[in-house]
């Protein structure tokens, strides 16, 4: 699967409190979560993002609270994928569980600028800057996570195995 999008850059240790402040995490309204995406760092982020855009961040992205509205907000605002140097573990699980793909790449962050158009191959882990053609390599998505994305998240994955 190939994704195209514009880059939004963030630093190290982006925590889930800034991804979505807690007062907006009550309930199950995904669109409402999306409106507050990244509000703690940039109150206008949701208004600026176009569908398909890609977040490129430093280390430990998604640290802190286990709130699932964090990956849901990122997905709802239209971000197609998050690339980071590393991810906090609960965020990593939550993202794949709700069908938001993540790639970890040690050098993409240093090599791309905010606003760059990039092309991401989720199968090979290749990240290409459209103008200039520089290519960065991310670690391939583990087989089990690929399965989760194919099945449409964890609940659909287990629904296939269970009989109600």
């Amino acid at each position, binding site marked *: 699967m190939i994704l195209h999008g514009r880059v939004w850059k963030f630093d190290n240790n982006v925590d889930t409190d800034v991804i979505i402040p807690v007062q907006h995490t009550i*309930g199950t309204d995904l669109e409402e979560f999306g409106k507050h995406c990244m509000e703690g*760092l940039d109150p206008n982020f949701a208004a600026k993002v176009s569908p398909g855009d890609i977040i490129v961040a430093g280390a*430990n992205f998604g640290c*802190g609270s*286990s709130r*699932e509205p964090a990956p849901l907000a990122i997905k709802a605002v239209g971000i197609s994928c998050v690339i980071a140097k590393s991810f*906090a*573990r609960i965020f990593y699980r939550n993202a794949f569980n709700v069908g938001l793909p993540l790639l970890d790449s040690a050098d993409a962050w240093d090599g791309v600028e905010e606003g760059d158009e990039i092309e991401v191959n989720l199968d090979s882990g290749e990240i290409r800057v459209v103008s200039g053609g520089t290519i960065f390599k991310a670690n391939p998505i583990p087989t089990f996570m690929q399965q989760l994305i194919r099945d449409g998240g964890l609940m659909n994955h287990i629904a296939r195995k*269970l009989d109600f």
Partner: protein
Amino acid sequence: MSMTITEKILAAHTSEGVVTPGELIDVSIDVIMGHDLSTPLAIHEMEKIGAKKVFDPEKIILVPDHFTPNKDVNAAESCKRMREFAERQGIAHYYEIGEMGIAHALLPEQGLVVPGDVIVGGDSHSCTYGAIGSFATGVGSTDLAAAMLTGTLWLKVPESMKLILRGKPRRWVSAKDLILHILGDLGVDGALYKAMEFAGDTVELLPISGRLTMANMVVEAGAKNGIFGVDKITETYLHGRARREYRVFQSDPNARYADVREYDVGSLEPMVAFPFSPGNVRPVSEATDVSIDQVVIGSCTNGRIEDLRMAAEVLQGRKVAPGVRLIVIPATQDIYGRAIKEGLLEIFLAAHGVVSPPTCGPCVGGHMGVLAKGESAASTTNRNFIGRMGHPESMVYLVSPAVAAASAVKGRIAHPDEVIRIGK
């Protein structure tokens, strides 16, 4: 094969009976905890795929602790949804206001979690339960739904790191200061995906309340779980409390660790984590020029009776500085009752503090003490991220209950010795 305590507990919950770090496994789960922020989304996920029944209502514990007493209509609706779900599913371990508490204080206190358990909670601080020799980790709502539905979850077996603490801490240096010191050393991703196993003569003398405080904050270093071995102190704590039989696991002497670190804590000062990271830690002597508007004493980190006693000792016969708001939050109904009997609440009230019902409240910026733009708080909670306790331009300094109490008296961050003179 030699294994760590974390590996042994996980192995005992798989069909294979053996695990190695890095391996993906399916584990059976003994206890599943959900609260009023994580559970409604989990119910939504279950309903989306048409699931009707949880796998075992006895193993599920639901605690509305974050925005309760309901802070607004949205919170009330969320809690109602969770309450009705508990009724429908026959979940007996649903703790309503009046018998509830902050889940991470309530579950150990009520003997609902025991050594050898695999516990998952829809909250990142579920790692707290590792204090009594269990494997406990935080998950999100979809994992919570999957666990409630199937009683199992996939996990990656973590590598373990061993943290050996030696020496007798000085007066006023508490478990909170120890874990802040370790976070300062490791940084906020220094234990990413790992198990943090605590050992050494310092922790051997540490009461369970202190071990709960330390295990609570391992997630602040990115760890999957924190764990203490079971010893006499654990057994005494569990006596008459544990609701189930339990199995004791200990690390093998030649178990493998990804990292072993030793800390001499004998000369340590009380510690302060500065905004905006729990890893941004300095000794209290470097923080005494920080003026504060609010003090919070409570939370899953430091809302237990031992914490309230420590704060009361500093506040007895004193008043908070003019302009400082002191909010004390006993973590459970039982702790609240004990604090009344012991005369602690009287001390807090006489000091011009207020006492809140059990709730996560201000720790998560929910209610019951949210900060305005430009305000600062000294707080015994666990996170000081941007906007954590309110306005994005407010600031939280993480401290122990004793330092919080001393800071309330001084109106700035203070060492308890500044309030209670040495030798007095």
